[in-house]
């Protein structure tokens, strides 16, 4: 209770005046941008996706390092989680590279029948090949989820054994 009151006190006494100065300061010293900045550029979405892949990948690498440093891999559950993280990290790398490639080497549909099984894609240069194979990203994502599920199932099995 005392702690809660002190936090509220801190908010009212220290933070609120600062926030007010920030808000009212822009009225006293107006700048050309008085409201939010519009983000309509399509490339911005592209970069958001790319950063999200990078962030996901870094988090997975961090997770692997953390588990390795803690010597957790002795447990089978953690070992499986490490493999899941490896595949998640690889999947993010694949998507990250795939997005860049797709930006420069868009898949070109070859002339001919356009049915589900008959449609073909031109492989004019190495970029097209890379684009093709990076699009098979589920070959990395599915194993990642399989390992993740097996890891959790292993923890549950161990917990049940421990309970018994």
């Amino acid at each position, binding site marked *: 209770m005392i702690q809660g009151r002190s936090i509220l006190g801190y908010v009212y006494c220290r933070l609120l005046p600062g926030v007010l100065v920030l808000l009212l300061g822009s009225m006293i010293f107006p700048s050309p941008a008085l409201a939010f900045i519009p983000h309509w550029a399509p490339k911005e979405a592209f970069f*958001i996706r790319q950063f999200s892949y990078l962030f996901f990948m870094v988090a997975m690498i961090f997770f692997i390092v953390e588990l390795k440093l803690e010597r957790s891999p002795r447990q089978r559950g953690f070992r499986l989680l490490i493999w899941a993280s490896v595949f998640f990290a690889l999947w993010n790398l694949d998507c990250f590279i795939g997005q860049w490639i797709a930006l420069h080497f868009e898949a070109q549909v070859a002339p001919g029948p356009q049915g589900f099984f008959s449609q073909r894609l031109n492989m004019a240069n190495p970029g097209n090949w890379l684009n093709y194979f990076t699009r098979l990203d589920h070959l990395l994502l*599915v194993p990642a989820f399989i390992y993740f599920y097996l890891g959790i199932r292993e923890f549950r099995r161990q917990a049940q054994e421990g309970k018994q």
Partner: protein
Amino acid sequence: MISLPSFPLALTDILGSALVLLLSGAAFSCSRKLLRQDPENALWLFLYWLSLALLAFGLSRALGHIIGHILAVAGRESWANQITPYSGGLNAILSIAVAAVTLFFHNIQRLYRRMEADHHHMETTSHEILALNKEMEALVMERTMCEMALGIADGIRNPLHVIGGFSHRLLKKTALDDPTRNWAQAIAEATKRMEQMVERFENLAQDKKAFFSQEDLTKIAQSILEMLQEAFEHRGVHLVTGFHPSPAYVQVNKHILKVALAHLIRNALEATPAAGEIHVSTAVDKSHATLVISDSGRGMPPEVLARIFEPYFTTKVGGTGLGMVFVRQIIDEHRGTINLESVVGQGTTVTIRLPIRFAETPI
């Protein structure tokens, strides 16, 4: 020009998305069961949130892809194009959510290790307490039996002396040819035999004190100080000793008394800052052997001192509040006394007095 069929891409995407849906759902269900089993387990909580974030991510991604393919097959590619930005935006946010939950693992891991260490510490402490309790029970039983036996022997000896005394007087007053003289003779002999029996019984009861033995209190204190020498050096606390020149023999259970004394000295060590002093001394008077442990530590206020022997009362983080209770019980079982004096900022002095009756100087 080389060309490759596009259907492997679509097929992998559809099948992969369906598998991701299934697996993320199964993983979430499993982690939820795990958390239900033990809601206070930090690791299970982390796995639950990670699997929840991955389920949301898997759902958003897989549904976006599957719906996109269905619409394309149905010839509604414009609808698919409308959905793509929403699905893509949501996927990006959920990717970040998964990453954020994963990065939180560091804190969870630290918390988990701390909990595990605390749990281990508690388990060890409770095992020690249990073992000590068993020994104390055996000690109390043994001592009670000895005291009862000695009490009975003492009670029988007094009337026997009376009977023996009167039978001898009767023998002296009875004429040699008196037929009752034989009766008085029989009474005197029987009384003597009974006295011998009582004496043997008494000796047996005294020898039966398996849990108690005659020990030198100074040597016990010295052995504990030797054991804790490293702790003294580590904390930079000076030890000052002042032991009685002759042995301070007392009837004690060496092992149990050592537990109590080690606890008191450890407490003194914890309370004393670096470069502080701890004095340990022994003294002997007519009826008691005394051990004094005094430190120059932070001391205790009177309200803490008044509650020091209360069960579960502790000022230490992670303490059980049973240490001093056991110390007092151990001293009580040795028919001794323990006295604490403390001044805040000056230190604490613990005085233990143990009776030396029944204690004999070894030949």
